[in-house]
């Protein structure tokens, strides 16, 4: 097994994919959260500002999903194949929601009629909320595990996808991203709309905390394979502590009007949540719920060492580049939204 800096390639690639999906959750997460909150904004001008706050960046943010999908395909083809074919129906709904989200953003401003705009507002908001929810549901199922046979083929019912636990994770994910999106919008707005969004940050934070507490208790009580690591390694206890502190810090920073710090805190919440899931699962990626020996791990599902090596080189060159122009774009559009003739 090839290693780099003492860590084998498979684990490196697991880290890269984890980092890319975390990047996706943070970046497109605020787009989806802003979208889910869209209908709470009543005035036409408020909705335009909210839409233009994500306007120049949402497309670039979605790229992280594309990179994540490609990275999974290249690094762990067995997981890519088993996971996607098992989750066929919800993924198809996810893809269609992704199309509706994109199309609603693009088409809303193209006609002035009220019914036209309301129609796309509703479609935009519902598809964003659905995406935020489904991301959580998929994560919940991955965390919980699915029945796989010895050839790693899904052998469960297709309706079992919407099980209690995954739905709980879905709701938590929706709440988290709504909070995250609200904070992003606070950074981008002024005056009355700003006041309204500060209020929404408070409400969504409460929503998130309640959802998180319930889901965490359920996990601790009923899902042993997701809590073993944290039981065995007391040092890991620091992670939930960081998460709680970060949530508390959001409210503190908002009241001090330091929005960037508030936004970073909520990004920390997202990252820590995903890091905990990754640490609990590792080295498993897709847990086989009825027969754990059929689980897909970073070792039995990976591409060859040569390919992992090539892809790590690709990632080492590519990820900093992506980071650089993402930063450049965000820097270009920093500050409050100003509507002009190029706006949606």
């Amino acid at each position: 097994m090839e290693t780099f800096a003492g860590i084998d390639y498979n684990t490196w690639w697991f880290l890269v994919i984890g980092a890319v999906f975390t990047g996706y959750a943070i970046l497109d997460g605020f787009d989806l959260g802003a979208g889910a909150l869209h209908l709470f904004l009543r005035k036409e001008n408020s909705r335009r500002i909210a839409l233009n706050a994500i306007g120049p960046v949402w497309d670039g943010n979605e790229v992280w999903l594309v990179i994540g999908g490609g990275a999974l395909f290249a690094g762990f083809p067995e997981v890519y194949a088993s996971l996607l074919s098992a989750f066929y129906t919800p993924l198809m709904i996810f893809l269609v929601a992704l199309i509706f989200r994109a199309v609603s953003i693009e088409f809303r401003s193209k006609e002035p009629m009220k019914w036209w705009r309301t129609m796309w507002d509703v479609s935009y908001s519902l598809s964003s909320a659905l995406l935020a929810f489904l991301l959580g549901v998929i994560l919940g199922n991955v965390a919980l595990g699915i029945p796989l046979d010895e050839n790693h083929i899904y052998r469960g019912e297709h309706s079992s996808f919407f099980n209690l636990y995954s739905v709980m994770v879905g709701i938590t994910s929706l709440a988290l991203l709504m909070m995250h999106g609200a904070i992003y919008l606070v950074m981008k707005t002024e005056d009355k709309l700003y006041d309204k969004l500060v209020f929404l940050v408070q409400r969504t934070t409460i929503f998130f905390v309640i959802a998180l507490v319930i889901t965490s208790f359920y996990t601790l009580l009923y899902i042993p394979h997701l809590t073993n690591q944290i039981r065995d390694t007391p040092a890991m206890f620091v992670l939930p502590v960081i998460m709680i502190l970060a949530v508390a810090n959001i409210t503190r920073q908002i009241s001090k009007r330091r929005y960037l710090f508030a936004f970073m805190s909520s990004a920390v919440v997202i990252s820590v949540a995903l890091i905990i899931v990754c640490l609990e699962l590792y080295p498993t990626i897709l847990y086989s719920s009825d027969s754990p020996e059929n689980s897909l791990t970073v070792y039995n599902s990976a591409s060859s060492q040569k390919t992992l090596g090539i892809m790590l080189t690709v990632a080492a060159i590519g990820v900093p580049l992506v980071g650089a122009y993402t930063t450049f774009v965000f820097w270009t559009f920093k500050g409050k939204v100003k509507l002009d003739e190029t706006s949606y």
Partner: protein
Amino acid sequence: MDVEILSRIQFAFTIAFHYIYPPLSIGLGLVMVFMEAQYLRTGNVIYEKMTRFWLRIFALIFGIGVATGIVMEFEFGTNWAVYSRYVGDVFGSALAAEGIFAFALESGFLGILIFGWNRVGPKVHFFSTIMVTLGSMFSAIWIVVANSWQQTPTGYHIVGEGLKARAEITDFWAMVFNPSSIERISHVWLGSFLAGAFLVMSVSAWYLLKGKYVELSRSSFSIALGVGVVSALLQLVAGHRSADVVAHYQPAKLAAMEGHFDSMKPADLYLFGWVDKKSQKTTGIAIPGGLSLFVHGSTEAPIRGLNSFPEKNRPGAVNFVFQTYHIMIAIGMFLIALTLYSVYLWWRGTLFEKRWLLWVYVWAVLLPQIANQVGWYTAEVGRQPWVVYNLLRTSDALSEAVKAEQVIFSLIMFTFVYILLFALFVYLLNKKITHGPYNDHDDEHSPRHLEMAESLTSKTH
């Protein structure tokens, strides 16, 4: 219907629909680079208006391209799980490289392109236009590399057996530069340039016929015609080389493309015709010995017919492959004649007086689109029954976990959504074109100039 045929229909439908948009983005991007370069060089406001007009249309096309493209990336895993396991090591790498090197570049800079007109300087904006265009061209590279590997696999070895068998990379660069990569990338690029150039020429011709935006439309048309004529001519070379590769590495596909059942010496080259699979007869107008001449440089050289391949290893839809291939060729030839004749008239200075020719251009926008579509049908249907040539059969590549009713559900959903999407696309495209590049009252000032004027007046208050 079984899962195989449903999955094939779904993949064909979603990829064909998706492929309306990326070639337009690539081609339009290139034309915009030339337009904006003219703006920077001359400072003439007409080039700014032109660039901004096409930018709005570009944004629309790009948006739908992205939305339908993400579907493709996940459809390999959802519908073709065995295929995904088999090729992940090779194909997945190319796809991941596309995401990280190309797609991120174009999507990142797209925001600046569309929303940054008042935020960044003209040079940074021009740089962004170049980056988006390059990004979309890089995208094409990786996607075509992945597909070319399926056509002419090299740089791999097979590990494991039966269900566990899969291809692994042995030589990354041999995989990237497999025997058909270069030929097919250039073929796809040029097809895309043509699609973009003809869109610009179509809209410009329509404005000229209506007597609107005359100066702007003439300049746009001329820029696009330059891109169009060069691409059409180069396509002759690239297309021929692509066919050469097929003749060399996929003789069964070539036999289907030309409707040859028996091995022949010399083999004829059909200009058009009809293939009857039952009686194994192809009727039509042909150049005697033409195919032998094209492939081997001699009218006497032998060409293998379909019957020389085992039945289970040759494409089934022979007439379909024959027709799609010949439609593509016919369109390619017509575009060469059309653009060359137009360049001649342009040089004489009479191009824009020929109203009938402008009408031809209004409708000719469909031709590169059709050629791009049928060209891919030829490539993909002609590769059957293999999904990876001579390695993995399409019928073996399916997801075991997916049932027919699930695919029916998603197929109905995609049909509905894509029809809606296409209707909206046409509606908005039409609206943007009707609205035009500028209103009469803002003829003089670009918004950037207006903004400067505003900031000056507000300071005096």
